[in-house]
C-alpha cells in the first residue's frame, strides 16, 4: 500500500467514526475498498481515490457523504441468524412474558436491523407460535442507514437471501414469488415499524421495551460508546425485559447493571434486581 492509500483509508475511518461512532480497525481496509469502489463508480467517479479526493475537498454532497458512511456500516444479516436466540425467544422469553402479563402488549426493538430479516423472523415466529400475541406485539426495527431501511420496508429478497436460515415451510407460508425475488406477505410486513436511528447519538422517543435485539453491532463501537449505549438501554428496558447481544458480545466489564442468563445455547441479559428502575 502506498502513502496516499494509507492516508485515504485513515480519512474514511475518521469520517465513519465521526458520523456513526463506529471504529474501523486497520484490518478492515478491505471493507473500505470493496464497499466504496462500486459506490464511486455509481456516483460517476473514475476511481475510489477520486471519490475520497472529492470528500476531502468538501466538493461531495452531504448525500454522498451519508452514502459512504452507510455503505461501510451496513452489516451481514440473515433470517433466524444464529438460530439459538430465536429458540430462546420461542421456548422461554415469550412464554415467560405472557405468563406474567397475559393481556398487555409486548414491545420488541431490533436495533441495527439492516435489511429486515431479523424483525421479520421475530414476526413470523410470533405468528406461528403465539397466535394470541399477534395483535398485541409491537416490533420496532431501526438502522443507521436510510438506504438499507428502504430495502427492509420493501420486504423483497433474493433467492440467495431466502435460502439462508429460513425454514422452507415459512417460505411457503409468508412469502410470494415475484420473478426471481421473494416478497414478504403483508401480514408479516405490517407487524414491523421501521425507523432510522443512529445508536451513537441521542435516541428518538422509544416506548418501554420488553425485548431488545441488539446483535453484532456493539463490537464496532469504542468502549465509551458501548457503555453509553448500554446505559441508554437501561433507560428503555422494562424491569422484566430481556436484552439479546451477538454471540461474541457481552455486558461484562461494561455495565454491571446487567446479568447474563443462559437459555439453552443462547445467553441473554436482564437487569439485576437492585438495578431495576
Amino acid at each position, binding site marked *: 500500500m502506498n502513502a496516499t492509500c494509507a492516508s485515504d483509508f485513515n480519512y474514511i475511518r475518521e469520517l465513519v467514526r465521526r458520523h456513526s461512532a463506529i471504529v474501523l480497525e486497520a484490518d478492515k481496509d478491505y471493507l473500505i475498498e470493496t464497499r466504496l469502489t462500486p459506490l464511486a463508480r455509481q456516483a460517476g467517479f473514475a476511481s475510489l481515490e477520486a471519490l475520497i479526493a472529492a470528500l476531502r475537498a468538501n466538493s461531495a454532497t452531504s448525500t454522498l457523504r451519508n452514502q459512504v458512511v452507510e455503505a461501510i456500516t451496513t452489516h451481514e444479516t440473515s433470517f433466524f441468524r444464529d438460530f439459538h436466540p430465536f429458540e430462546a425467544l420461542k421456548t422461554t422469553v415469550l412464554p415467560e412474558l405472557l405468563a406474567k402479563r397475559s393481556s398487555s402488549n409486548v414491545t420488541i426493538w431490533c436495533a441495527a436491523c439492516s435489511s429486515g430479516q431479523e424483525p421479520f423472523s421475530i414476526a413470523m415466529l410470533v405468528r406461528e407460535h403465539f397466535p394470541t400475541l399477534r395483535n398485541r406485539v409491537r416490533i420496532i426495527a431501526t438502522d443507521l442507514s436510510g438506504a438499507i431501511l428502504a430495502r427492509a420496508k420493501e420486504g423483497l429478497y433474493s433467492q*440467495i437471501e431466502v435460502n439462508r436460515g429460513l425454514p422452507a415451510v415459512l417460505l*411457503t407460508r409468508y412469502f410470494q414469488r415475484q420473478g426471481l425475488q421473494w416478497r414478504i406477505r403483508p401480514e408479516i410486513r405490517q407487524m414491523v415499524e421501521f425507523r432510522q436511528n443512529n445508536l451513537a447519538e441521542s435516541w428518538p422517543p422509544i416506548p418501554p421495551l420488553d425485548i431488545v435485539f441488539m446483535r453484532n453491532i456493539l463490537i464496532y463501537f469504542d468502549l465509551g460508546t458501548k457503555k453509553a449505549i448500554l446505559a441508554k438501554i437501561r433507560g428503555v428496558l422494562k424491569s422484566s425485559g430481556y436484552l439479546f447481544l451477538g454471540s461474541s458480545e457481552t455486558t461484562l466489564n461494561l455495565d454491571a447493571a446487567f446479568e447474563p442468563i443462559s437459555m439453552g445455547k443462547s445467553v441473554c441479559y436482564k437487569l439485576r434486581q437492585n438495578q431495576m428502575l
Partner: protein
Amino acid sequence: MAVLIVDDSKAMRSLLRHILKGAGFEVFEACDGQEALDYLQRTHEINLVLVDWDMPGMDGYAFLQAVRAIPVYHQLRLMMVTAESEIEQISRALAAGADEYVMKPFTRDAVLEKLNLLGILPD
C-alpha cells in the same frame, strides 16, 4: 454423522461433498433415486439425505415418497437441494416428507444453516 448426496450432476455432488466434509460429515454419493434407495437398503448408517429433484430414472420426489413409505426410515432426515423454486413444488416436497428445502444456486452458509435448523450439524 453420515450423509448421502443424491444428484446426477458430478459437479454438484463434488460441491456438496466439499461443503459437508468440511462440516464434519462422512459423505456417500448416489446418481439417482433408485441407486440411493438401494444404498439405504444395504446399509443403515445414513443420518441425512440431500436429494436433487430432477434426475434420470427415479427422481427426487419419487425417492421422497418411496423412503417415507418405509417405516424403518422415519427417523432419516431428508433435504431437497434443487433448482425447482416454485412455491407449489416446495409445498409438495414438504408434504411428501422433506424436512427442508434448498434452492439452487445456494451458498455454503445456506446449506449449513438449514442443517443447523434440523439440529444435525456435527459439533
